[in-house]
């Protein structure tokens, strides 16, 4: 009997799986269909009207179908160079954050955990704010100093939190890690506040990063982020069984044959890598990483093998829709949209759902 099957049996015994839950495969198919529909909608709509037929034509021609060009070059530029990379980036970032969020929630056995819980957000924000203050303009792969420093800041702060919190001190390892994350995050937040105070007229740029946004998306940036996010997310999904084991507690997981320390370190590293790459290209997009995994668990129960892929699909759908809303409302920060639309939706679901689960 495999680790996964046993741990799943135990997980079921502990929290119960909703009776008559729809099959995960069916849900995944529905989700992918919805995602495809959302992609078409998001590419078709924008501040400039491009006829729907033209949009489809441009996309089909771009993937090599022999279709005559009946549209203007400007329409083609808008669809292929502006909207498509942006929508694909939203899919990557939304999906990646949802997977990372699910991983952090499982690892820390804490329903309030999100991808930013171990200092990633404050580290990235401080890195970005410092980059704004440094008058250095070199750009590589469409990535400026801001993206590089926010990526590095996110990884660095998680590394510090892990080193300091691993011992646990007087607390159990997980509590120690969470508290260390909180302390380091507070310290970094103070640094961020100081940097923002010094930023003067550049404050707007820092704010834009803190609220998240996809307006800077481009093919080159996607080429940087996509391998990290997709690779990291797939590696996490491949470890879903380990995550199920860890969900039962360290001892139980150890009895199931999981090398708890090692697997926890690997999963933390992967989830942090995914988060850092997402944050570097899109800023601090909130809510998706916290809520998408919960929404999925409410439907299919806590089995990580179902939760992780479905959360990725749902996260992608949510962020593409949120970014579409942000664009149509005049480039307002996408983080505002995810929270304003997401929070009531989440509340409604919490109230309307009877099948409980625990982390």
């Amino acid at each position: 009997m495999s680790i996964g099957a046993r741990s799943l049996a135990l997980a079921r015994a502990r929290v119960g799986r909703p009776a008559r839950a729809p099959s995960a495969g069916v849900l995944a198919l529905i989700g992918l269909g919805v995602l495809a529909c959302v992609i078409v909608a998001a590419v078709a709509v924008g501040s400039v009207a491009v006829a729907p037929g033209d949009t489809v034509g441009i996309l089909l021609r771009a993937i090599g179908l022999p279709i005559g060009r009946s549209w203007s070059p400007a329409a083609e530029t808008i669809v292929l160079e502006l909207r498509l990379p942006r929508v694909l980036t939203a899919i990557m970032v939304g999906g990646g954050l949802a997977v990372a969020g699910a991983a952090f929630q499982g690892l820390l056995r804490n329903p309030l955990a999100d991808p930013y819980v171990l200092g990633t957000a404050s580290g990235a924000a401080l890195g970005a704010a410092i980059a704004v203050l440094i008058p250095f303009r070199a750009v590589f792969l469409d990535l400026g100093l801001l993206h590089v420093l926010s990526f590095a800041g996110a990884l660095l702060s998680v590394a510090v939190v892990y080193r300091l919190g691993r011992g646990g001190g007087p607390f159990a390892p997980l509590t120690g890690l969470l508290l260390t994350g909180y302390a380091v995050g507070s310290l970094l937040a103070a640094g961020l506040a100081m940097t923002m105070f010094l930023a003067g007229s550049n404050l707007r740029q820092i704010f834009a990063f803190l609220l998240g946004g996809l307006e800077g998306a481009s093919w080159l940036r996607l080429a940087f982020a996509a391998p990290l996010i997709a690779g990291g997310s797939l590696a996490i999904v491949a470890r879903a069984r380990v995550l199920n084991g860890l969900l039962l507690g360290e001892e139980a997981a150890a009895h199931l044959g999981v090398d708890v320390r090692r697997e926890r370190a690997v999963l933390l590293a992967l989830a942090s890598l995914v988060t850092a790459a997402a944050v570097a290209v899109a800023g601090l997009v909130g809510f998706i990483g916290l809520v998408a995994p919960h929404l999925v668990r409410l439907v299919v129960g806590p089995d990580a093998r179902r939760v992780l892929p479905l959360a990725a699909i749902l996260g992608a759908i949510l962020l593409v829709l949120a970014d579409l809303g942000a664009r149509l409302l005049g480039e307002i920060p996408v983080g505002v949209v995810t929270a304003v639309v997401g929070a009531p939706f989440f509340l409604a679901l919490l109230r309307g759902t009877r099948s409980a689960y625990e982390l």
Partner: protein
Amino acid sequence: MIRTRARRRPAGFFLISIVVAVVLAGCGAGATAQPATVGPSPTTAIAAPATGTPLPASAAPSQSPSPQAATYPLSLTDDEGTAVTIPTRPMRIVSLTPATTEILFAVGAGSRVKGVTDADDYPPAVKQITQVVKLGAVDVEKIVGLGADLVIAGGNGFNSPDSIAKLRSLGIPVIVVYAADVAGVFHDVELVAEAAGQAAAGTALVSSLQGQEDAIAAAVAAAGARPPRVFYELDATKQIYTFADGIVQDDLIRKAGGDPITTGSATVFSIPLEKLLVADPELILLGDAAYGTTPAQVAARPGWSVMTAVKTGAIRPVDDTLVSRPGPRIIEALRALALAIDPALTLPAVPAPSTAP
């Protein structure tokens, strides 16, 4: 006590139905809605190529406001030191700052301006032009949709560097301007005029502006007064905001016969009250007068009564729109500031505008 509930639809249906409803709404919008159409119909919404071959001659507006022929492709260096090549005479110009819009109109390129910002208000004709900047956010898609063949942007963070980089990556030439003093504004007038193919008009405008500046400078020098310490108030509702060091308004106040009190930093625009008290302004200019700040309010602020300006009642409103806009009306701002600093000053009459709108 355990509460029991009647059987409900599984949560899954609830979730799915909401997501599907949202998405169907989205797809419906995709199929039918055409927000912010820039042309009369979807097929003509996209006006001209941004990156492709030049427009056929028939599609371009037939007459140009100025008969002079600049030679294109034209290579220029903008205020950030970027070399910009403009392939053909620009017919669809987008201006991302109110000041550069004013420059374009003043040098006779107004009819070719196809995109402006939501802050543009001068000349009044700009109100009819498509807005591509709203609340500081540049709508790159709309600029591409307009078929822009030249974009004039503001440097030093006025327009987001990301948007400028994106426009350039799409092959649209972008000239970034930033003036740190009045001479810099004149240079920008000539730069923008040249980029728009109106170099001669730009040179003529600058020589006229330079003449007016010299006349004001002569009048200020003739008055011979010691420059008073001037505090220009941008806002004081919460923190006190004034000009940073080394910006064009700093230079303007000097040229208008004042000694500006600035923040002591090139990037910070706020000044602590303590520092302002030590600097002891002899004259307070209210750039926020348009927002309802009055001299009486200033005098009543706690701590302000010890300032020389408050004691002598030297608190005067000025038109901040004029002062804060580094465009061709900068000399009007200079004139207004000189008169605000020394109301007894006699300035030469304003010459009639030499260029057509």
